[in-house]
Each structure stands twice: as structure tokens, then as C-alpha cells.
């Protein structure tokens, strides 16, 4: 009788402790501290929270929908465009360092590694923004300036 009571109590204790461990504690998950911070900031806190909540759950659907819109209909709005995601979430290449999809610190890769997801976006798409000087060099509509553009188009990985 006593042993039965003991076993039930110990079982319940074990269960509660497990629940306590798996419940949402005050500490953020480890992965969250690893994810690279976005370059640009939202105007308000609410916008940021809404964006995070939506994109965490739905980013794959948003990107897929936008992909077809852009490819087949030519809708090139910044919202949900992969290029704009990359522009904001991956730092622009500098002299010393270029963060690419081959680094664990790349915004997309950090999570995808954690959950063992293999995506092939970056087999074709650029995984980091253009070098800042390249972006400005490409801006003038005059395309004759080949000699000066030449030196800046090389994007190192």
C-alpha cells in the first residue's frame, strides 16, 4: 500500500518536473540568441512583433507566393521579396568579411541548421546583398562606364 503511494507520488513529481522543464521559461531558447540581428529597424515595436510572429510561422508560404507573383506577373514590390529579406537580414559584404549561406551565422542558415532543413534557394539566389560600392556603381543609367564598373562587380564570398 505504502509502496504504491510512493510510486504514484514519485511518478507525479517526475511528471511535474518534466512539465516545468518543457514549459515556456523566462529564458529565450538558445537558438534565438544566435540568430543574426536585422540591419534595419521597424518604426514601432508592434510592427516588429507582428512581423516576427508572422514570418516565423509563414515565411515559406509568403516567399513561395511572392516568388510566383514576381516570376509570372512581374510584381516587384519589396514586401516578401527574397532580395529584400536578404538586404535586411544579412549584413552587406565588407573588405574583410562576407557572410554567405555557407556560414552558420547567416540568418537563414542558423535556424535551418538547427531544425535540419535543407533549402536550395541559394544554389541560384544571391545569399548576401551586393557590395555597397557595386550597388552605387550600377545605379547611373549610363552603361558605357565599363572600365570602372569592372573592378567593382567581383563579389567575393
Amino acid at each position, binding site marked *: 500500500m505504502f509502496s504504491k503511494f510512493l510510486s504514484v507520488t514519485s511518478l507525479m513529481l517526475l511528471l511535474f518536473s518534466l512539465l516545468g522543464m518543457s514549459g515556456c521559461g523566462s529564458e529565450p531558447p538558445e537558438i534565438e540568441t544566435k540568430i543574426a540581428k536585422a540591419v534595419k529597424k521597424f518604426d514601432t515595436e508592434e510592427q516588429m512583433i507582428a512581423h516576427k510572429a508572422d514570418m516565423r510561422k509563414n515565411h515559406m508560404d509568403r516567399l513561395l507566393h511572392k*516568388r510566383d*507573383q514576381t*516570376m*509570372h*506577373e*512581374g*510584381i*516587384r*514590390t519589396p514586401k516578401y521579396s527574397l*532580395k529584400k529579406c*536578404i538586404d535586411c537580414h544579412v549584413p552587406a559584404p565588407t573588405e574583410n568579411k562576407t557572410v554567405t549561406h555557407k556560414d552558420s551565422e547567416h540568418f537563414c542558415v542558423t535556424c535551418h541548421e538547427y531544425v535540419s532543413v535543407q533549402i536550395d534557394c541559394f*544554389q*541560384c*539566389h*544571391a545569399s548576401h*546583398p*551586393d557590395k555597397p560600392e557595386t550597388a552605387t556603381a550600377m545605379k547611373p*543609367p*549610363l*552603361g*558605357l562606364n*565599363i572600365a570602372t*564598373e569592372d573592378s567593382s*562587380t*567581383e*563579389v*567575393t*564570398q
Partner: protein
Amino acid sequence: MSDQINAYRRKFMAGLAGVAAIATIAPSIVLREVKAKAADEASTDSVRWGLLIDTNKLTESAIDAGIEACKKRGWGDEKLSNDAQDSHWIRKVKVTDKTTRKETILPIMCQHCETAPCVDVCPTGASFKRPDGVVLVDKHICIGCRYCMMACPYKARSFVHETIENQRPDTPRGKGTVESCDLCIGKIDVGEEPACVKVSGGAIIFGDLKDPESNISKSLKEFGGTQIRADLGLNTGVRYQGI
């Protein structure tokens, strides 16, 4: 009574003439060259983008500059592929007239056919024509079968044979997919001209073939333009003058 009817008829006819006059004068005012659609607007078939290449005006160096400008969009630096495998969004083709021995150098790119053979044969729907007439490859669904390369009478398409790195943000491309001239689709969607047009020194005109007031339509109307392999009846969007 008949006078009344006549007066009414005269008034009606005068009204009609007025409408006709507006219709003849107005196009130049109402229909301007369509530059760019709004960013959030889907492309429509109210325009058809095309190129007009004046081969007499276009120098060989301008063709080379055009190819260089095109390459800057992200192709042409494959390391492992051989000459037959290398991508070519524009090719330089030299033709000689047998009787006059006149040499003409033509830039040959995707001709953006109205009835494109590449679109016909694509088994997955990756090869498609946008409503505004630009023929593209949706590389997301391209399986790399290369049927389109065999179907294209202009040899305009190429297959990427090797792993590509350092792609440009505006021109994603990768191993195992087919690619070709996309008429600088990202540029024309925001109202810019294709890269080769900018460096052509005015020898290549880009514009809307459906708008009779656009420069390309005016030039075509005045001087005419030839389609390469017109016998195939593909109604190409790229036309040539001087051949």
C-alpha cells in the same frame, strides 16, 4: 418634318466627325510611350515589349559593349565549362551575302516569339511567355531537360553545366537549369531599358510594339524590319533592320 430629320442627322453626323477627329488627333496626346507599370500591378497584354536592331548603325564594338553589359548581369564567368557549354545570352553572328559579299554582324539573343517553340515543348511549364510578350524560364520548375534548347531555331538558350557562385541579386541562376535573354526583365518592370540597349549608341531601340506612337513602332512603320527566319511564322519581338 424631313427638315427636322435632316437637321437632326446633320447634328448627329457633326458629332460623329468630332469623335473621329479626336480619335485621330488624340493618340499622340492620350497614348504615350508606356514606360513602366506600377510595381504592384501584374504585367498585362496591353503592351508587347520588343527590340529593333539597326545592323547598319550597330558597330561591332557596340555589340561587344552590349555583350559585356549583358555579362555584368551575372553570366559568362563559368570556370569549368568549355566553349560549347558556356552560357550565351547574346551571341555575335557574322553573315556574308554570297553575291554582294556584304558582311553583317548580328547580335542574336532570345527573339521573344509570340508563338514560342520553347514554350510549346516545355514539359513542366517552366518555359513561359509573360502577358507582355517576354519569354522567360521559371528556373524554380525547370528540370533541365533541354527540350527548349533543341526547339529554339535561334540557338538562344543555354544550359548551366556547373555550380555557380556569386550570383547577382537580380539574376538568380544555377546548375541544371536553362537560361536565355530575359530582356532585362527586372529593369523593364521598373521602367529602365535593357542593358544592351543602353550601350548601343541608339542602334537598338527598345519599346512597346503595340503602341503605334512608340519609337520602335514608328521606326518599324517608316523603315520596316526583318524577322530572322520569318518563314517559321513565330512573330518575333526582336526585329532587325539592314539585313
